[in-house]
């Protein structure tokens, strides 16, 4: 069967330049919104789950769902670190485990307002647990053990006051010097880290919040949990880091995903409406051309395909425009309070392949959906009526 040359559709789009441009922009803007929300969700979700490790165990007090609700005494922490055979050891025979304190402290944001910034006091073991995952950026260094120095996650360095390199950050009454900005897996980049003992003292905290440790090969967090549950001296529970982190963000991630789906449905419907209108009007103006095509001998199905392709083009152009619109958002920092932890969580828009592919696919689909009905009508026109119309 002979198909209508694709040139015909392509050029028709350019003949009706202003209409094509307006349709493309409106499909583009629709797709841009979807892409932006998707980029947000991507930036958010990858930050939290992608790098959570299954071979790292997180130990919290029984019942606590998050560090902020947990508390482990110094003795218990010591016991967990020293007497857990599940933890791997380093070359010098030290367990790859560490106790950490965690408290979200109210700090001023640079744009005004306040937020709760997680302050994490860590033992040197924490750096051994994370190894190369944590990196202090060029120009700074790690805090010296036992000193009143902190390092700040790079994502909040500019969002929170007094968190820039070289600044002095006052925690409760104690001034801490910011000596480095660090990059690290996920949510850590929204935190301030200092020496565990100094942080506990400054914040007047009596207890640690959690113990983390690298599991030996072949041991799972569930194995550790099983032993701890049986240990009557302790009232703690262990989970692997990945499930811990996803538990922290499930709610917020769900909100973004829900928002994304809701917007896709509602706005997508609007875009299909636009597409139908544009294609109907475009085809109505070309009734005579349809007549000519039919009388030349093209089959109705070829005409249907031809107009459907044209609508697909329209969508494709819209998708490209939409992606171009959101491209400047890539890497832009934003932040909100994660209500699961009630503390600041900074993340960036990430225009990933998923975002681009998804946006373009949705755009093409919108175009095709919008074009189907008008194309069907065009294909079913009677040659004689089509030719007779002025």
């Amino acid at each position, binding site marked *: 069967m002979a198909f209508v040359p694709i040139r015909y559709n392509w050029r028709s789009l350019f003949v009706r330049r*202003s*209409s094509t441009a*307006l*349709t493309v*922009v*409106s*499909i583009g*803007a*629709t797709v*841009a*919104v979807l892409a*932006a*929300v998707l980029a*947000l969700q991507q930036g958010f979700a990858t930050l939290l789950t992608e790098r959570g490790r299954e071979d790292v165990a997180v130990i919290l*007090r*029984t*019942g*606590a*769902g998050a560090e902020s*609700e947990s508390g482990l005494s110094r003795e218990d922490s010591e016991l967990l670190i020293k007497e857990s055979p599940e933890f791997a050891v380093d070359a010098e025979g030290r367990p790859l485990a560490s106790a950490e304190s965690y*408290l*979200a*402290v*109210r700090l001023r*944001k640079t744009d005004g*307002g*306040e*937020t*709760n910034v997680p302050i994490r006091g860590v033992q040197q073991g924490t750096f051994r647990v994370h190894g190369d995952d944590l990196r202090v950026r060029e120009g700074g260094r790690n805090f010296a053990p036992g000193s009143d120095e902190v390092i700040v996650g790079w994502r909040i360095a500019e969002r929170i006051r007094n968190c820039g390199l070289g600044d002095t950050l006052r925690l*409760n*009454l104690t001034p801490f010097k910011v000596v480095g900005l660090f990059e690290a897996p996920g949510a850590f980049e929204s935190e301030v880290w200092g020496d565990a003992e100094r942080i506990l003292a400054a*914040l*007047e*905290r*009596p207890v640690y919040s959690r113990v983390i440790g690298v599991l030996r090969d072949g041991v799972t967090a569930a194995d550790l949990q099983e032993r701890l549950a049986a240990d009557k001296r302790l*009232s703690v529970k262990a989970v692997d880091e990945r499930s811990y982190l996803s538990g922290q963000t499930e*709610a917020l991630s769900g*909100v973004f995903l829900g928002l994304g789906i809701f*917007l896709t449905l*509602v*706005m997508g*419907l*609007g875009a299909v*409406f*636009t597409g*139908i*209108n*544009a294609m*109907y*009007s475009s085809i*109505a*103006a070309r009734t005579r051309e349809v007549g000519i095509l039919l009388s030349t001998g093209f089959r109705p199905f070829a005409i249907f395909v031809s107009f459907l392709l044209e609508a697909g083009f329209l969508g494709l152009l819209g998708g490209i425009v939409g992606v171009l619109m959101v491209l400047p958002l890539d890497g832009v920092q*934003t*932040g*909100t309070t994660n*209500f699961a932890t*009630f503390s*600041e969580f900074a993340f960036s828009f990430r225009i990933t392949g998923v975002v681009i592919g998804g946006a373009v696919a949705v755009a093409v689909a919108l175009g095709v959906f919008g074009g189907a009905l008008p194309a069907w009508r065009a294909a079913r026109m009677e040659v004689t009526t089509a030719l007779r*119309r*002025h």
Partner: protein
Amino acid sequence: MSPRLILKNLLAHPLRSILTLGSVALAVFLVCMLQAVVTALSSATSAASSQRLWVQSAVSLFVDLPLSYESKIAGVAGVETVCKFQWFGGEYRDGGSFFAQFGVDADTFGPAYPELDVVDGSYDAFAGRRDGCLVGQALADQYGWKVGQTVPIIGRIFPRVDGSAWDFVIQGIYRAKTTAVDERTLYFHFDYLREAIEQGAVRMEPGVGVYLVDLRDGAEPTAVMSAIDALFENGPQRVQTTTEAEFARQFVTMLGSVPVLLRSIGGAVLFAIFFAILNTMLMAARERTRDLGVLKALGFTDRWVFVGLTVESLLLCVLGGAIGIAVAFVLSLGVAKAIASFVPGFEIAGESVALGMGLSIALGLVAGCVPAWNASRLKPVAALRAED
């Protein structure tokens, strides 16, 4: 153009008119919903009282204050009553559904909150029973709770040593007269928690999250705030005293970019729909170029044509907007329930309706003006020559 002609033109392409109507309705629906979320998120601020003060740790909201502070705060001039507030953070039914629980002092909590209206059971019954609790109407509706029923809650911050749940018995169901209080909270006796801790049922130190201070009539809030802060300047723990309004505002600023994000989405939606409608209106006018030429030849003035086309677009958009608002209103009743735990107080109220209507009118005018202007400038001779 006569009203009849405008109407007939709209009816001539029923599909196009319906689709345009639908687009506007969808856009206005979305904007209304997003606006309602933003309004709801910030509504706590507007209704909050400046006659109530909150005393919290100067370090962090997550740090408890000593019990001994109560009598010291009560001694400050201008303070009428002091009520202890403790965030409980427990789980009901495996954490699947979240709502806030607070331990409070029954004798001072009620008087400090006249907004609280106990509609079932009574406040006195609550005050009179150690393990009693008050629950909001929205919570009671959601879980089908009745007065007298026991609500088991697993403590996450305050886990019982034996792993069992805390049992609170509902003594009253309240409604809130303003948005300063939400209807999704469970209030129980602080002393019930303290006793349990003292009896060793919970391995925790007793502490107070926040002290709520009700001011004496005529007391100057700023003076009282600085007096309280000064009281604990040298420890053992410093405090920060704020008015309830300021406290609520802090919570709103914690949302960070969320309101901006939602507003940007709304803006983008309007942007997309504006172009769609502009396109439709331009197409509709272009298809009728010859008709417009005829009207002009018959003696209709340029202004007639301009006004007629603008009114046509306006009519479509206002009607679409009204539908969008109506749909948003109907759906919001269900949505409000679904998102009540994240966004309490979600409703399509005056502000959203006004915004939606204003935007539809603006959309209709602007999208109608462009083709109407073009049409009014058309030379009749050229218009009559136009191909269909």
